[in-house]
């Protein structure tokens, strides 16, 4: 069964757009199996005491949608999304706390995700009134990210395969990690995540008939940080990862024996760029450089991966799964 978790990360919007978002989720024609709300407020409240929220929770119970309110770790929304990513659902529908989906959004996104092979993520239009980007025809290619509006910002009229998505999308959970090396503002986290799914061989779709209305609000929001250096830090990580997109990044932050085992499959790996600890086994650049370039290197932690996969086969096959 393809179970769907709906994940909402919220900050500073208890009494503005968050109730509208929750209502829109409750009124979906296809309901998620579970709704999880990650509360990233500096001073979190117990919303069970608020009348509107009391009703929301009761309606969720009546509609048999499991729900959970989690006080988030306040490290940025990428950490929140990674928690959702690892909650054991096949699909996660992430909805921003100022983005109001029309009633059929999940139904339509889910139908694309399950009808087409190898879907990594599918997102619909995210429209901000007044509409500004009609008449543009974005390609959705990663190389055009600096020169065109995101494809989700205009009305998507037909299905299109793209390299990345921007926000509020349905994705295949547990196959790619969020980059936890980004700062608290998590600039470009969605782009890195969806492009990472694509690099793993999954297809990314911009889909029609799945409109979400973005009630853009300068107050609150999960990214309510203004430190320019955080954005610069995250943008640099993004650019470094994209600059290596035609290479296979290999990071061996592990033992001598692991390097020896990995070395056997090196000839099968296209365009490898290797960062490691034992250059006498495999010529490599340092782990410190990998951390500086890519921020979070846990995506490449073979032991973490084997643990996640509940691995029972050989270490060599685990490396093959990670890199081939």
């Amino acid at each position, binding site marked *: 069964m393809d179970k769907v978790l709906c994940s909402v990360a919220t900050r500073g919007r208890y009494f503005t757009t968050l109730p509208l978002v929750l209502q829109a989720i409750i009124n979906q024609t296809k309901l998620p199996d579970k709704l999880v709300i990650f509360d990233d407020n500096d001073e979190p409240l117990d919303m069970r005491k608020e009348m509107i929220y009391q009703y929301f929770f009761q309606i969720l119970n009546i509609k048999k949608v499991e729900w959970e309110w989690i006080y988030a770790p306040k490290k940025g929304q990428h950490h929140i999304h990674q928690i959702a990513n690892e909650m054991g659902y096949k699909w996660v529908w992430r909805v921003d706390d100022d983005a109001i989906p029309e009633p059929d959004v999940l139904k339509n996104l889910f139908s694309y995700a399950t009808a087409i092979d190898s879907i990594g993520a599918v997102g619909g239009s995210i429209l901000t009134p007044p509409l500004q980007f009609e008449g543009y025809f974005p390609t959705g290619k990663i190389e055009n990210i600096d020169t065109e509006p995101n494809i989700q910002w205009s009305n998507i009229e037909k299905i299109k395969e793209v390299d990345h998505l921007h926000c509020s999308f349905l994705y295949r959970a547990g196959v790619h990690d969020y980059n936890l090396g980004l700062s608290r503002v998590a600039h470009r986290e969605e782009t890195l995540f969806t492009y990472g799914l694509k690099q793993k061989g999954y297809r990314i779709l911009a889909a029609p008939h799945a409109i979400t209305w973005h009630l853009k609000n300068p107050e609150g929001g999960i990214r309510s940080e203004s430190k320019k250096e955080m954005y610069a830090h995250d943008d640099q990580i993004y650019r470094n990862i994209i600059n290596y997109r035609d290479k296979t990044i290999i990071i061996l932050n592990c033992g001598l*024996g692991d390097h020896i085992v990995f070395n056997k499959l090196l000839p099968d790996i296209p365009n490898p760029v290797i960062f490691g600890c034992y250059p*006498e086994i495999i010529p490599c650049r340092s782990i410190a450089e990998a951390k500086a370039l890519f921020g979070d290197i846990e995506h490449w932690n073979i032991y973490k991966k084997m643990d996640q996969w509940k691995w029972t086969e050989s*270490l060599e096959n685990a490396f093959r799964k990670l890199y081939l």
Partner: protein
Amino acid sequence: MILIHPYAKKLISGKKNPKNYPYWEELIQKIPKSIHIVQIGIEGEKQLVDDFRKNLPINQLKQLIKDCRIWIGVDSFFQHLAWSENKAGIVLWSVSDPLIYGHTANNNLLKDRVYLAKNQFLWWENTEHNPDAFIKPEEVIKFL
């Protein structure tokens, strides 16, 4: 010549590595005196035979692997190095799983899977050394 690699990497905590075979002295006693045994390892490890070669670079280890008739070791980098040199040997297992970390070309001597650590993917710092988890020397010698 038989090559032995008796000890896995030292733990940060200073505790005994649970992968270290506890019966080396008895095992060595059972090997005919006419067979030359070379121990490889690092400074600070217990010397078990006269010929103890410490801190060798990888290329010298590879040469010794080529030159030996057989090797005996624990689950450490050495079993992987010998595998990469296509030289089969004997690996003495306890808490780590030979189906994950071993190579089918070797004789992987595991007493019982009941002794395997529940989580195979953490550091070995929190796993206690248990001599009962290892196969006895008289069993090992049958494979030589």
